[in-house]
């Protein structure tokens, strides 16, 4: 049991990674290596920063005007125990729905392939499961490929059930005053490369990758 998490990025509000307006936590580290994964820069746990669960819970509770929290990464279930405790600490102070991504299928997670999987599932309202499969790539709501399923594990977000077969939610691009740029969503593969090359060509603006996290 650990009181810390390896966190890559934090976004206090986002409308492309789950129902409504949500805070998002990207954990760092995923031992799976799905070809074409768009989160390649944060698959190494070293890409993240160690954060105390209590401190992270305090931050999440303070994020304004959100309906829920999305956990992604990286592979959230590689830090399932710590994330489950994070959620419980947040839920004691604020009621937020929880959407969690995983490269494992729901059936696999129920077999507890990693410590704490059942605990994290128990506090999750919506699970999007399965690895990204380039061959099954599609423009789907909150997912990158058609093998990935949206599981409503509780009644909390079921109003969105009919929407999940529709097209993707697009992307959200955040720009800070210092010119740093961060995007969130599940666009088609090649989106980021295409964006960067078009931006350079059309506007003479060059996106330079950073090693740090967006926090």
């Amino acid at each position: 049991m650990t009181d810390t998490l390896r966190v890559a990025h934090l976004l206090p509000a986002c409308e492309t990674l789950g129902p409504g307006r949500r805070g998002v936590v990207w954990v760092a580290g995923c031992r799976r290596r799905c070809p074409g994964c768009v989160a390649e820069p944060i698959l190494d746990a070293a890409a993240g920063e160690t954060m105390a669960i209590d401190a992270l819970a305090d931050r999440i509770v303070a994020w304004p005007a959100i309906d829920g929290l999305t956990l992604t990464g990286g592979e959230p279930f590689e830090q399932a125990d710590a994330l489950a405790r994070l959620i419980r600490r947040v839920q004691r102070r604020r009621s937020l729905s929880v959407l969690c991504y995983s490269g494992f299928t729901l059936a696999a997670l129920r077999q507890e392939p990693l410590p704490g999987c059942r605990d994290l599932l128990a506090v999750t309202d919506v699970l999007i499961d399965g690895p990204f499969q380039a061959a099954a790539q599609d423009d789907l709501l909150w997912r990158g490929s058609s093998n990935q399923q949206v599981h409503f594990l509780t009644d909390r977000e079921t109003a969105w059930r009919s929407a999940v077969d529709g097209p993707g939610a697009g992307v959200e691009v955040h720009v800070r005053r210092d010119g740093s740029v961060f995007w969130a969503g599940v666009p088609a593969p090649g989106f980021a490369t295409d964006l960067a090359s078009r931006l350079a060509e059309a506007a003479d603006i060059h996106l330079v990758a950073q090693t740090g996290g967006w926090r």
Partner: protein
Amino acid sequence: MSGAAKYTIARLSPALLERLADQRRQEGAATRRRLNATVASLLAERLAALQADCRHLAATLQSRLNEGAPAAAGGPQPHEVVTLLAACEGAESLLELEPVHRRLAALVAAGQGPDHAEGRTALPEGSATQPPAPDGWEALRTRMTVEMADLEARLTAFKAEPIVAAWCQTTLQDADDLLAQATSAVSQGAFTHADGVMARLTRRLAAALAEAERRQQEEEARSLIVAGLVQVLQAQDFVVGAPDLSEPGNLDSEVVIRAMRPDRRRLAVRIPVSGRLTYAVDGYPSRTEPGPAGEPTHRCDEAEARLDAIHRQLATDCGIETDGLVWEGQDPRRRPPLGRHLPEVRPPGERTRGGA
């Protein structure tokens, strides 16, 4: 994993940076010209007001002399009133006019007896009702008063300058406090303290302008980046909403650009047993605005208009009357009366309509 995120820094090309810097230099020069013109105008107004007061005071003294008031020691002498009035008319700066005004005020106060002698202003050295001040004291007070007037005019001009007002609110509030401290110190004759406070105020104003220009240039660079991103996202076949500050009204917060596929917009309607219609709204551009208490509220005019049209059609075609739309995060000022009776917690993105 899903939910991709890349963190990058957008670098403007050297040519763009140079263009921005050049633009800022030109606008900076224009800002300084505007500030100087505003200060000059404010000081001219102050000079004119002080001259008008001098004329009024001189007229009061002249009237007393004409009525045959005895010329007391330290009181008005006919030739001095004429000399002071001439000095007033010839004064081209506050530095010249301040001592004239103070002398006239002192003469008027002296003529009204001891109760009034200090009413308008402390008397200058050598007056009938106050012991002589140390050498140079009066000149020092005049200089400080004039410098204060100059600083006050500059502060007013800074407040009127859009980029300073936009980026330096805290500095301007500090400057207000310093000006009040300096004014109080000068009126109490604590000139050394006043001098120190005024020096701080001068430095604060200079720093405010530099800070405002730096932040404005940063914002102009960000605007270029945002415009470039919007253009490119549109070229990638996204429908792009108007860029928004993540914290409305806070220029330091992130700009958020929302891009979606053209076929993204959808409304899902759910009719539960209770008879209350519930809508899942997805893909329509939404906006966050401050509510009555500054709290963030959400609105989505396009989706609301679409739902209103559906309701009008329900009424016309089916005779079904409905009430107003209610959703979580709605500005309470826009909430229809029925909304007060609905459960507070609704699934996000849902709008409900009772009475169907």
